[in-house]
């Protein structure tokens, strides 16, 4: 049952840059064909995804090495990272909620809650 996940892993190795995203699409397609989630895969996904943030820790530690480069443009970088990111999330969420909610999807959203 873990084969589907394993297969996704090995496909990542053969594909160029957005390999992980391609593997996601492949696995999703696979699940659509299966029409259900194998129990072991579901358990694996729940466990791995609950640790999702862990996989970014080494990259975060790597940021320290670029401190001299960051310092050169610090005000602009801070404005872009903090202002830009918060603005983007707020704007995207508002637009999605306002524009993306014709009446017939309202019910679907409420069912999903």
């Amino acid at each position, binding site marked *: 049952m873990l084969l589907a996940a394993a297969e996704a892993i090995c496909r990542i190795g053969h594909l160029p840059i957005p390999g992980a995203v391609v593997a996601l699409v492949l696995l999703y397609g696979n699940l659509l064909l299966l029409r259900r989630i194998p129990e072991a895969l579901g358990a694996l996904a729940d466990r791995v995804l609950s*640790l999702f943030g862990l996989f970014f820790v080494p990259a975060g530690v790597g940021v320290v090495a670029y401190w001299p480069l960051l310092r050169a443009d610090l005000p602009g970088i801070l404005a872009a990272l903090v202002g830009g990111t918060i603005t983007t999330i707020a704007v995207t969420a508002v637009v999605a909620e306002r524009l993306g909610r014709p009446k017939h999807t309202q019910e679907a959203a409420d069912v999903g809650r």
Partner: protein
Amino acid sequence: MSAADRTLWLSLADAPAVDLGATVLLYVLAIKLQRRFGGSPVLNPTMVAVLFVVAGLELTGASYESYQRGVAFLPFMLGPAVALLAVPLFRQTALIRASGPMIIAALSAGLPCGILSAVGAAWLFGAHRETLVSIAPKSVTTGIAIGVSQAVGGVPALTATFVILTGIVGAVGGPAAARLVGVRDERALGLAMGIGSHGIGTARALRISEIAGAFSGLGMSLNGVLTAVLLPAAMTLLHP
């Protein structure tokens, strides 16, 4: 600490298994710490674990290079973990099908907004051109951002740094910002988190609810692929 203790500690700190074990332990500790403080988003587990690891490396004098070699397994696991996002996506298939207009609206707003707000803000504060180009793809997932950065003449290492910091900012402040502007729909919040702050934002969304997590993974993937295609094309149009 005696000299002998220190030698022992250094030899342990150089062992890959210790780097990996310590990182996992510190991350679990960071999650416990966050729970202890009522789930405060300011104590984002990824960020807190990074600070713990940096403090540990500085205190023991261990090298960053040997640490990165020791924990190489974790970045490797990121690919399979992203692929596993297919599971929450599949569980939410009906809801995603019913949310087409919302997904299109979120991408149309979020993709250009992520790039323009970053480049615009950095430009206003007089950042160098190299910084401007490198910061443009900051909202998409690392692997794609690095490829895009290379394609448009940025510095990939700098881009990777911006991507990580963007993720942390979004994970910490994103949900509060969305609440502040009155957003209640978990699908809209998830899409915005994934589009604005990729995987680290998705990690936060997964902790909010499965719906937020699934839509965040969806937003991250679509935004990543579209940015990879559109940003280099837009740059070519601007600077033929």
